């Protein structure tokens, strides 16, 4: 009986896609841009459609072993076209097909604002980042940042201290921490909130470490796509933060730039982005009045 109709169920296997994605990234010339182009040209394909499955499964074992060895016991992946992949990520120029996370994925659907800036801020910058995070928490926004030193760390910590929620979109693989001193903070956010990484685990470990810094600005594009708006607290002329500014404008997200960036005579980028639609912020209300009202989940149930 060779011709009975097929009743097999086509489905996405996360472990297979994880392995296939890591194999695609293991090729020397792979980049977010090249992979996004490949999937744009093949809109119905998954990573496993391009990779030998046995190879993908071997790679998956390797990567899972690496994660386990670095103490990551629980993690998940999100795959484009499978459930829970956030469609807002498709607004990125080179959207990621797969990402890793630790923690509570449902937070990704909460109304959120990114607060970002330089790794070497002024003391005022640290305080401004903290104040904005506090205000956002009060207004029921989840504070998203990149877990870098400086502005990012201040925003995360302040949101937590204010009793709010925070998401870290990191520029290292899910099993790495940068800078080292943020290890406890990263684990805290993973255990209580959500840490997201789009960085391929195998590639990161197996290429010249100096090339890994290019992953940092890439995650800013994803961070912008995940959020309703980005607030830049402080950033230099060549700061990676400006990648996020460009992404926000490109993706149609609100971009807020604090006034102190404009008044710094050494900087030209604030004016440039203001001309492109960024909003100059002199007080928190300039942010609040330009955000949609945070969506308080409808009470469908008496809980």
């Amino acid at each position: 009986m060779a011709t009975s109709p097929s009743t097999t169920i086509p489905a996405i296997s996360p472990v297979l896609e994880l392995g296939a994605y890591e194999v695609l990234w293991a090729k020397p010339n792979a980049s977010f841009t090249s992979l996004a182009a490949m999937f744009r040209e093949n809109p119905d394909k998954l990573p496993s459609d391009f990779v030998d499955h046995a190879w993908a499964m071997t790679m998956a074992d390797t990567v899972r072993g690496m994660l386990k060895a670095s103490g990551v016991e629980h993690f998940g992946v999100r795959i484009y076209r499978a459930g829970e992949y956030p469609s807002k990520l498709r607004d990125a120029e080179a959207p990621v097909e797969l990402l890793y996370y630790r923690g509570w994925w449902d937070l990704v659907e909460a109304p959120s604002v990114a607060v970002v800036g330089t790794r070497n801020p002024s003391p005022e910058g640290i305080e401004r980042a903290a104040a904005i995070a506090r205000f956002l928490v009060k207004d029921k926004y989840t504070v998203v940042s990149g877990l870098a030193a400086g502005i990012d760390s201040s925003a995360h910590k302040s949101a937590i201290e204010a009793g709010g929620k925070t998401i870290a979109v990191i520029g290292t693989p899910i099993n790495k921490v940068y800078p080292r001193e943020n290890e406890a903070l990263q684990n805290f956010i993973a255990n209580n909130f959500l840490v997201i990484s789009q960085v391929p685990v195998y590639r990161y470990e197996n290429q010249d470490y100096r090339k890994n810094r290019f992953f940092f600005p890439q995650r800013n594009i994803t961070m912008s796509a995940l959020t309703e708006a980005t607030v830049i607290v402080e950033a230099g002329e060549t700061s990676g933060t400006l990648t996020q500014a460009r992404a926000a404008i490109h993706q149609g997200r609100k971009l807020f730039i604090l006034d102190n960036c404009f008044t710094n005579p050494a900087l030209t980028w604030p004016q440039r982005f203001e001309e492109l639609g960024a909003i100059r912020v002199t007080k928190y209300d300039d942010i609040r009045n330009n955000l949609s009202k945070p969506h308080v989940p409808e009470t469908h149930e008496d809980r």
Partner: protein
Amino acid sequence: MSLRLTKIDELTLPDHYRLDITDECYFIGEYTARAGFDYSATNDLIQNLKKPMDRKDRPEWKYKAWAIEQAAKQMRKALPSEVLEYATFIPVPPSRIKTDDLYDDRVVQILQKLGDGVDVREAVTQTEDYDASHGMEVRLGPDELYQLYEIETELLEPTPMSLVVVDDVLTTGAHFKAMKRILNVAFPDVPVVGVFVARRVPEYP
């Protein structure tokens, strides 16, 4: 963009400890509900789907009907037409028996909305309630559930080509295991798979 089903594989298998790698289970979304984190569309869908029957007279009841509609729509889109046409769908029986006030046939309703010609049969029923009287759900293992299940094989004539067991949420996998066992006994040569609206992601300490 059409949403695809996700397979329970070695990455998610430990979250459903009653299942083993030979079990074929598929889901659409992930349910991560816990206090204060009610943002996700799947959490919302599942919570409305599970709304207890004693809330029938409250305004919130309309959300249950909405959730049943949504779940059916997602499932219909995710399942290939050949499966919808040729497979036989069996709902996991609810925790309360038909004569109980709290009997909730939401899964049957979802299946009935999959479309004309979809073969749905309530062939497995439960002989008694297993919810405790104080609303605390009792977690029964597959063996205990198997003892409570009853199959009406005459409802499954002629022998189905393939069996799809359907439930709203995959938790430990105990219900699926019990269903698979009773169906395997009745039809040793017919493959049994599970399809769920969502899988529950456990809260790790």
